[in-house]
């Protein structure tokens, strides 16, 4: 369905009911991959919700005191402990990378190969910086503070368990995203999306919509981080 056809469809609630009642596609003009990513993200939302709800439940019911995040996650700057300094920078970098991703999507649809490629690459570097800082944070907690998944010096042992599990699971998501961002940056620069080169594994034609699909995933990962940030570091 071309864009001009899409403009002719009715909008609002009427449009929605007509789309659902129609044949062929329920989401008019939505690429298969894009629809798939949305539904995958819905499923993934349930994964992270289960993690976070489990965390809240256990945090509410443990007997031992929960460690005080402002102290645990503080960095010493010129002899003064600054709470949440590293986390603030990490969050800033990750949210910024969402911005560069959005620009990459825009240039992708404009078929501006160079700019799109640079912004995908920039996003990848942002993500990599985030993962690097997370590795730093983990190693500080593990080697300097002695926090382990099964015990920690600050209080309830579930603190370490949930922290490593949830940030680890999120970090894995970010790392997978970074890998794909690098692969896609290469594909963009090589011109795969302009020539419609077929994928090595899937044998399907490349299209700039893939950048948007990857972008959806990337924004989702950022959004999840906002929740982790709120529940872990601010609570």
């Amino acid at each position, binding site marked *: 369905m071309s864009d001009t056809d899409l403009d002719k469809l009715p909008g609002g609630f009427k449009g929605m009911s007509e789309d659902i009642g129609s*044949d062929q596609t329920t*989401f008019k003009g939505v690429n298969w991959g894009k629809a*798939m990513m949305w539904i995958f993200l819905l*499923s993934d939302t*349930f994964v992270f*919700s289960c993690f976070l709800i489990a965390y809240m439940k*256990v945090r509410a019911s443990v007997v*031992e005191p929960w460690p005080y995040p402002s102290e645990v996650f503080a960095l010493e700057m010129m002899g003064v402990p600054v709470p949440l300094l590293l986390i603030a920078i990490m969050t800033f970098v990750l949210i910024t990378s969402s911005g560069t991703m959005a620009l990459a999507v825009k240039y992708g649809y404009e078929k501006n190969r160079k700019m799109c490629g640079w912004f995908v690459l920039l996003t990848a570097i942002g993500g990599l910086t985030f993962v690097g800082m997370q590795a730093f944070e983990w190693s500080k907690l593990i080697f300097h503070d002695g926090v382990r998944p099964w015990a920690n010096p600050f209080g*309830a042992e579930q603190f370490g*368990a949930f922290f490593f599990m949830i940030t680890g699971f999120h970090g894995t998501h970010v790392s997978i995203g970074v890998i794909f961002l690098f692969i896609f940056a290469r594909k963009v620069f090589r011109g795969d999306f302009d020539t419609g080169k077929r994928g090595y594994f899937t044998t399907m034609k490349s299209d700039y919509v893939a950048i948007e699909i990857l972008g959806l995933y990337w924004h989702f990962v950022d959004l999840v981080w906002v929740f982790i940030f709120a529940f872990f570091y601010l609570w």
Partner: protein
Amino acid sequence: MSDELNINKKRNNQIKTKSSATSGRGETDIDYVRPAELPEQDLYHGHSFITKWIFCQDAKVIGVQYTLTAVFTGVVGLILSWMMRMQLGFPELFPFLTAETYYQMVTMHGMIMVVYLLTALFLGGFGNYLIPLMVGARDMVFPYVNMISFWMFFVAVVVLMASFFVPGGPTGSGWTLYPPQAILEGTPGSGYGILLMLISLSLFVIGFTMGGLNYVITILQARTRGMSLMRMPLTIWGIFTATVLALLAFPALLVSSIMMTLDKVLETSFFMPTIIKAGEALSYDGGSPILFQHLFWFFGHPEVYIVALPAFGIVSDLISVHSRKNIFGYRMMVWAIVGIGALSFFVWAHHMYVSGMSPWFGFFFATTTLIIAVPTALKVYNWILTLWRGNIRINTVMLFCLGFIVTFVNGGITGIFLGNVAVDVPLSDTYFVIAHFHMVMGIAPLMVIFGAIYHWFPLVTGRLLDEKLGKWHFWITFLGAYSIYFPMHYLGFIGVPRRYFEMYDSPYMTSAVGMNEFISVAAFIVGAAQFIFFYNLVKSLRLGKPAGKNPWKANSLEWLTPDVPPTHGNWGEKLPVVHRWAYDYGVPGAKEDYITQTTPPSEVKDAEVEKT
């Protein structure tokens, strides 16, 4: 009745005149279907043995692969159930059956049957084979991902089966894998067994997610021209809703598997409370076992409907085809499926009435549980009303459908018993529960699976299954299953606890021993009868009567492919165009008693077809 028909006729005429008046394009107008929105699907055609049959991207082959793998695990599950029944019916007869092996068998039997047989068979098997064919697509929308999905499932099965051969054997913690006992020493298989189980489940979830996204998007975004959601066969509605449930429920299983794996490997304390063992405190401290139960049942209850909803959908189609009547209340059936699916997320704690949670919580979940009975009962009435005054053909498929209805009603009614807290408390953990869930989500869906295989085998292979063997198979399975599970209700009422390896000298021994022996013998016979079915499958594959095109005179698209069995790409040159729902059977005024979905209205002008 005739008045109603006249009113319908009048209304149809009005609509006809209206449309021709406004558009002014005359008679040809009535066959109009909106033009194609999407370009032809790009497909990868395999050309070697490996790409055609092993790492194949054709959803039909993947469906068959899923089915065969699931049936293999099912046979393992069946053999385990035989061994369990040997022990229960004739204790101490077989020295190799110890308490430990018994628990391991119970656990593996449960997990295999629920997840690796039923879920994989309905969604992976029937879903893959039927979705593209029934909605008129050339293939699933992401054939490559679909292939990976099957191989992920295959690896999950291999890991699961490997747990039989590791030191300590498979886990024996019961299929619910409740901590803390699941990972504590003393439970059989608490070492490698439970670990492999958790890994296997995680792999299953990942693999299923890949397949599930395919099913959902194919149904939503890849239907053929004219195929609106409300013209889809109910099979597709059932599989669709079940897949959505699975995509939202399996995350809870994945999360609980990950957390328990960490509890086991890294000795974290997510689910593990403070435990004193032989006077010494273990390293666990302060975790919440109830949290696991909530996570598990948040997956576990939708799981029941993940199995049941495809069965509901498929049986609706089978009943309609083989009684030559449209399904009664199609729209009601669709909304009932969707409603049951939505409600199934709000009932999970009815599995936990005796877990020590607040009784008020139980009251809430009892209410939601009983509300589910409404759409479910509605579906049962609609099946019966579909049969009512239908032109019923008593063939094997129909027999299995009738068997399903009876069994499902039976299991559903005992569900109402167990859904009420006050009744459940004395009955929980007795054989009544075993009888209930085997009836409702064991035998009933299996009846549908058998019926569906007898129905669609000619499509897959081009040959009919043997009817005579089929009828033997049905009667032994049906009567045998009742001989197994009816007495179990009674055992439950007298209080025989489930999961006990032996009754020893308890009072149950005297009153239940004869019954247990009877159940066991019945179980051996029913199990053996399944080999009639396997023999039938193998024999008919080569020697069965050639089915030809559309042997059941069905309306839905899967029977209307140019080649039977359908080839890769399904539809040859041109995609089918759909003009109606799949249930125009026995329409007054039509030349034949069925009008296929692709028949244009101009060919059946005199027939009083439903407006769909």
